[in-house]
């Protein structure tokens, strides 16, 4: 009781906790909605590929700062990183759409190329003096975000939700049977690149909160967890959003309670625990059902 009260009072006392919660919940909604399509389309790896492209973006932004001081402004730096991520997403799409290489290969190739490019650009920058470390990009900084970033997260999440609902029937058809979708008049290219662009945009925003390593977790775990609980698409969407939002909130309050543990990894571990528990419960239920079936006849 005492602990709960002190956590709550600290949450109320410090605006950065409130910023973190609002932005985190917004990203949870956007990522969870997209994760359903990402998981069922079997492109779970896509989040990794696009988020790691940020390294290339960071390297480019840091180098640009040397020549153009304007790029020290966070907004411009983020624009460079975002352009790298979205460009990589579209490149992955272009490579895998031609069917000359599979999507997982295309993702793997773009991932390592963008990371290597980022490291080389950083080397160049180091040759010219101090270079800030990649740390913030790796692990995110959900407790150090400005009001503007909170708004950006909310707007981005709203955009994703509106787009997914507007193109819901096309997305569903594309995800469950792409070739048939094409035959029945869905512009599958548009839907595929649109989905990639939404994922990339979401990653660009979510990366500031959870970092490169962890933000792709938000694009896999909610959909994967929800898929264990229902065979109805609307219910799956609701469960995905609910589990992601609950994990973000739980992770943040755990961070407040422990004072020393980082928020991003806590959120991811809560999500992973939810998935593991869902998996175990469903395996158990299946076993009980099978046994009941055997007993009954």
């Amino acid at each position, binding site marked *: 009781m005492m602990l709960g009260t002190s956590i709550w009072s600290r949450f109320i006392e410090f605006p950065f906790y409130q910023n973190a919660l609002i932005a985190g919940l917004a990203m949870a909604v956007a990522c969870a909605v997209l994760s359903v399509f990402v998981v*069922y389309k079997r492109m779970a790896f896509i989040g990794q590929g696009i988020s790691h492209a940020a390294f290339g973006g960071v390297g480019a932004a840091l180098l640009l700062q040397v020549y153009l001081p304007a790029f020290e402004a966070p907004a411009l730096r983020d624009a460079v990183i975002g352009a790298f991520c979205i460009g990589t997403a579209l490149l992955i799409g272009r490579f895998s759409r031609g069917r000359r290489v599979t999507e997982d290969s295309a993702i793997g190739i773009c991932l390592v190329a963008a990371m290597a490019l980022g490291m080389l650009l950083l080397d160049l920058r180091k040759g010219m003096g101090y270079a800030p470390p990649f740390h913030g990009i790796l692990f995110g900084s959900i407790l150090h975000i400005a009001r503007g970033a909170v708004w950006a997260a909310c707007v981005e999440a709203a955009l994703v939700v509106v787009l997914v609902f507007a193109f819901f029937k096309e997305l*569903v*058809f594309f995800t*469950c*049977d792409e070739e048939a979708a094409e*035959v*029945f008049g*869905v512009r599958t290219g548009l839907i595929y690149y649109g989905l990639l662009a939404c994922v990339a945009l979401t990653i660009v925003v979510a990366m500031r909160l959870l970092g490169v390593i962890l933000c792709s977790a938000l694009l896999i775990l909610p959909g994967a967890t929800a898929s264990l609980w229902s*065979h109805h698409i609307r219910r799956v969407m609701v469960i995905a959003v609910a589990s992601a939002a609950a994990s973000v909130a739980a992770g943040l309050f755990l961070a407040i309670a422990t004072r020393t543990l980082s928020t991003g990894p806590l959120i991811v571990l809560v999500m992973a625990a939810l998935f593991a528990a869902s998996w175990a419960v469903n395996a158990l239920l299946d076993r009980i059902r099978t046994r009941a079936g055997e007993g009954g006849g």
Partner: protein
Amino acid sequence: MPHRKISHDHVQEGAICINGLSFRYPDGTLALEDINLHVRRGVTLAIVGPNGAGKTTLLKILLGLLGGYQGQVRIEGLSPEAARHHGVATWVPQSSQLNASFPITVGQLARLGLVGKAGMLRGFTRADLAYLDRVLEMMELVGIVDRPIAHLSGGQLQRTLVARALAPRPKVLLLDEPFSAIDIAGQERFHDLLESVKAEFGVTLLMVSHDLRTILDKSQRIACLARTLHFHDLPEQLTPEVLSHVFHYDLDGLPLAEHEHRPGEGGR
């Protein structure tokens, strides 16, 4: 080469008219060679041939998914692209290509057939949904419309895919290996359903299969494909010579998968 000349008396009223169709893959391999095929409206035609005979290629051309072919292809007087665009020809794919773990019900999957007809950012019209209800009833799916596809038998899933294909009110149905996912007992029943669909909605059925035994008694006309058409007529007139030629057909000397059909081979 046992190649029958095809009568051209139905050209005008044909549901499907193919004249001198040839198709080469980008690597130069000839997949289809000088195909001539004229299918009357309301007929059930089966195209049989071994794996690699060009069945899928022909299907993709008819669906307007593959361009760059030589010759003329018309479906109800339209180009394949136009026929697909207007929902004149629709497709019942093999159910195995479907992502069966996707959380969608029978009713929702059938409605996807209307997605192109409705258009982007638009809902389905009441008239289309009423029509689909009739189709679902016809396909005996009314009792299971809310069942997830993950819990369907092969026959139920196949009927759902037919319902989806009928939703945009096509004139031609192209079915890819329609009986392969159904057990023997269910095949007869599924065939009866297809025949009643044909009578009710006046569609032409074109089935493609490698399984001659299953499809032979379920079609009015039959065509044998092995890169080119070797026979195109009534099933009763199909001779063992034609069959042995088609099913032993080697593509560039490569032995095909159908070894068991090859006389003199395989421990007999």
